[in-house]
């Protein structure tokens, strides 16, 4: 067992999850079994391998180069934006709790 109850509690906190007692027990078992399986990656010598976080990390961005051109985040700024901002009422219509201007949430600071 590489993961303990304490780890599950800590990771749940990082992930903003509470998890019931029953869920924690099951999670402990599942995560350990999955991590045992992913351990096989340690068979690979990756000391001289570059990481690939995105397809564009590895493949050309240059359109003149063969192999295609993968896009990346940079583009010319468009001052007015690519689309109009949503009207206030539309932006708030899916909110679980809102007044006519703002999203409302439970108290953040106790005094």
């Amino acid at each position: 067992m590489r993961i303990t109850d304490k780890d599950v509690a800590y990771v749940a906190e990082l992930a903003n999850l509470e998890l019931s007692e029953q869920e924690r027990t099951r999670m402990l078992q599942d995560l350990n079994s999955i991590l045992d399986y992913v351990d096989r990656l340690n068979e690979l010598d990756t000391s001289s391998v570059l990481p690939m976080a995105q397809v564009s990390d590895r493949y050309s961005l240059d359109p003149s180069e063969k192999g295609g051109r993968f896009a990346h985040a940079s583009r010319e700024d468009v001052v007015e934006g690519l689309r109009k901002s949503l009207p206030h009422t539309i932006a708030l219509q899916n909110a679980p709790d809102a007044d006519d201007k703002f999203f409302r949430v439970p108290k953040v600071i106790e005094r």
Partner: protein
Amino acid sequence: MELASLTIDAARSAVESGRITATALAERHFEKIANADPQIGAYLTLSKERALHKAAAIDALAVKGEKLPPLAGVPIGIKDVMATAGVRTTAGSKVLGDYVPPYDCTAVARLEAAGAVVLGKLNCDEFAMGSSNENSAWKPVRNPRDLSRVPGGSSGGSAAAVAADMAVFTLGSDTGGSIRQPAAFCGVVGLMPTYGRVSRYGLIAFASSLDRIGPLTKTVKDAATVMQVIAGRDAMDSTSAEVPVPDYIADMTKPVRGLRLGVAEEYFGEGLDAEIKQAVEAAVQKLAALGCEIVPVSLPHTKYAIPTYYLIATAEASSNLARYDGVRYGYRARDGKTLSEMYRRTRDQGFGAEVKRRIMLGTYALSAGYYDAYYLKAQKARTLLAQDFEEAFKKVDAIVTPTSPTAAFKLGEKVDDPLAMYLADIYTVTADLAGIPGISIPCGETKEKLPIGLQILGKHFDEATILRVAHAFEQTAH
């Protein structure tokens, strides 16, 4: 009009010639859904008003004798992970149970602009996480070919709707096999395009370096027709590529003689069902008989694909799903007294077991002290997997494999064993990680009459070649 085997061309030409109105065709599909879907469970939400409004607009064009757009009057369904303005979009999750998007996904908007009629939103695994559709928060989907079996996942509703003639075609999304595996299980065609080929604006994010949108159709030609409409740069998606879109239909009909097709032994080893192996080997023989040259290739890192995938996909998911906090949209737990308690309870009550499992695994893989050992290690293994394909594609034009190691399994068979479920994606995740396109087409049946899928993988942005091989193979079945 018979809906079985109704293709895009047949539907469009029936509308164009006036043999049926777009409105009547949509109504026929709604009737079919009303009769068949209670047993199958493919649709989560019907968008009747939107569909009939669109159909009426097409009918008005037809009456005037105007030239109709390429998908005029074609009834379609959309996986519920794609935003549809004014139509509930849940991603198969309780956390988005009442979510009504204020905007349209680009792929959906392009299909509608081309005349397609959106019938409704299709069931899927919660946030597209699953291989059987049993992780939907709402209801499972049953395989139309055998109701005791799963349709595959995560685009299970998208595959089942096409297989049961409840849509002419559908859109699905693929992160680890979620278009191709259900296509194989339900006996339809499923295409995952190259990463960047189709805009993902409006696709609810699961793992952003992997997620793609693609069609599930009855024929290869239909897949090419849909690609012609949805492919191409979209300013709203910074990862969509500025690569010209070829004429897929014209390219598809070119002869396959002389094409070099790779066969990798790593895809035919332990775990592959004997009947599937036999069917795929027979398919390879048919392609050879059509004049393709069969070339052995090696993809030596294939056995590392599932662990690589589950670290990368879950790490990205843990980050993407942080947005579901009960503040701006979606579900909010009412019993949280403080802000942080509200966040935690919202997520606890809103997410299902598999989603929580993946958020936990991903958070762990990214956490201090484990980042290098898990997430970074997986990114490096991803490079090795991509290199495997680079080497292979120096020798071949496409690679032919089984889509899935087994045919559709029974509902409940794997729900208690997440690892066994993950292994259902063993032949599909590699293409997601490398960014290359892949298609699954039917290539026979098991003795129990369950469909078998043949997967064809291609080079980046070379959907044309895999469509061509798929089309040539499809013709041999007629």
